[in-house]
């Protein structure tokens, strides 16, 4: 019979060894310190914090009841918002195909193109849609064109990255089989690579469309078209009942978008 003390070097059972305990305690201490540092040094006017529940109540009180007198033009702009998201997603999907192809290690022609592909993906992904929109509003002027291009630029990185990863994970045997029969490069892509990444392709495109629907609702705040322009206008003129209608319209749009994308995902995948 070996006792617990002989096996583990201590009398009583506990879940963690002393070393583990020390490490856990250390991690907790670091987290707690970080929180106290943040709380202690952040420049918050505490009077505003204590005041905030009544301010929020006041704001929502002013929003009620929502003013639907402008509903017609809100719905028209909402449709424009959907068009921005859909069109930009479609363009981004088309542009991201070659980018994904050169950013995947197993299909890229050479090292230079691999790094070019990765550079495009990283720079597209790291800059937020709003910042892209600021830039394109300066170039194209206010309007939905800037919005479409901004969303497209941000989406290329997202779709390209996930698609590139899917290409890197394909089964290489169909590719080899086709190459062995003397198929051209184009046919290898069309018959060995495309069918394998098709499910990921659709899943990513639908997911990004869903995200873009949300992002296109804020483009208007920097002048790049869509429902955000009306929201900004209503807030700037303290027309809270109309702002409430716009917010409800956005909520309905996003929920509808989620239902549509869930339906498409079930049908296609």
């Amino acid at each position: 019979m070996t006792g617990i003390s002989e096996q583990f070097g201590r009398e009583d059972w506990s879940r963690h060894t002393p070393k583990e305990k020390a490490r856990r305690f250390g991690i907790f201490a670091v987290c707690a310190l970080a929180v106290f540092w943040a709380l202690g040094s952040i420049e918050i006017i505490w009077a505003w914090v204590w005041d905030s529940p009544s301010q929020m109540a006041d704001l929502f009180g002013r929003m009620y009841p929502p003013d639907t007198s402008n509903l017609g033009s809100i719905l028209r702009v909402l449709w424009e918002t959907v068009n921005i998201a859909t069109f930009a997603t479609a363009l981004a999907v088309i542009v991201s195909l070659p980018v994904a192809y050169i950013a995947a290690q197993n299909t890229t022609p050479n090292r230079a193109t691999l790094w070019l592909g990765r550079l495009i993906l990283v720079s597209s992904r790291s800059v937020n849609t709003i910042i892209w929109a600021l830039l394109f509003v300066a170039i194209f002027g206010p309007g939905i064109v800037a919005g479409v291009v901004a969303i497209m630029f941000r989406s290329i990185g997202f779709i390209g990255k996930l698609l590139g990863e899917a290409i890197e994970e394909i089964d290489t045997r169909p590719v080899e089989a086709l190459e062995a029969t003397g198929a051209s490069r184009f046919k290898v892509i069309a018959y060995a690579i495309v069918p394998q990444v098709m499910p990921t392709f659709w899943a990513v495109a639908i997911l990004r469309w869903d995200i873009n629907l949300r992002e296109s609702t804020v483009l208007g705040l920097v002048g790049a078209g869509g429902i955000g322009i009306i929201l900004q206008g209503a807030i700037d003129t303290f027309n809270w009942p109309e702002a409430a209608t716009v917010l409800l319209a956005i909520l309905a749009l996003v929920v509808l978008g989620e239902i549509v994308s869930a339906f498409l995902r079930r049908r296609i995948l």
Partner: protein
Amino acid sequence: MSQHPDTWRKPPFIANPLLRWAVYLGALAYFGWVAATMPIDWARVAQGIERAGRIFGGAFPPSFERGGLLIDGFLESLKIAILATVGGVALSIPIAFMAARNVAPLPVFYLGRAIIIIARSFHPVIVAIIFVKAVGFGPFAGVLTLVVYSIGFVAKMLAERIEEIDFGQVEAMRAAGAPYLSTLVYAIFPQIMPRQIGLTIYQLDSNLRASAVVGIVGAGGIGATLANAFGRYDYDFALAITIVIVAVILVSEAISGQIRKRIA
């Protein structure tokens, strides 16, 4: 002789030919119509390219002269992200329990789901605008915004994880006569803890990234510094800020990825 063709053809994407052509034509008509109604003013674009040239010309070389402002902005973003993550995750846990079908009664379940849907539906920038109007400019509005943003993601993922737990442990606790709270603490928490920690780290990273954006509408942090630089035509400082934001995002993504890999 059978009528089978002797060359193989790729099976079409949609089997029903009528539906297939309807979908293709519909998509073509829709995108054609959107493209045709796209109001591109080429004269404006030509001017705009010149203007973009001026912006980029003013932005190069990036100026790190006012590094102090840059560091202050970043520290504020970091503080906002930390506090929002703590607050958001703390609120997410009860909401996730409310929104998990297997542990919550039906009315509570609907309430939990509704909270998550509302938190997820609004882009953080919209939430930020409303909070800035309600509680004033500054980091507090940023913290509130990112708390809402965190609830939308963490509570949703956590609720899905709770719905996937092994229910045997809950049943064992109930059979032993444990009260509701003890069942949660001893049967459910240990099962969702790894996911919970992973989500928290991911959300911290995500909040840091989002805090750069919500600052543009006045919710504090590095985004506010960036918006100020843009507003004062300090394009070289704006470019410096953007470069540092991108670098910090890449580093924080790498760190959070490493930690999550080691936990999982």
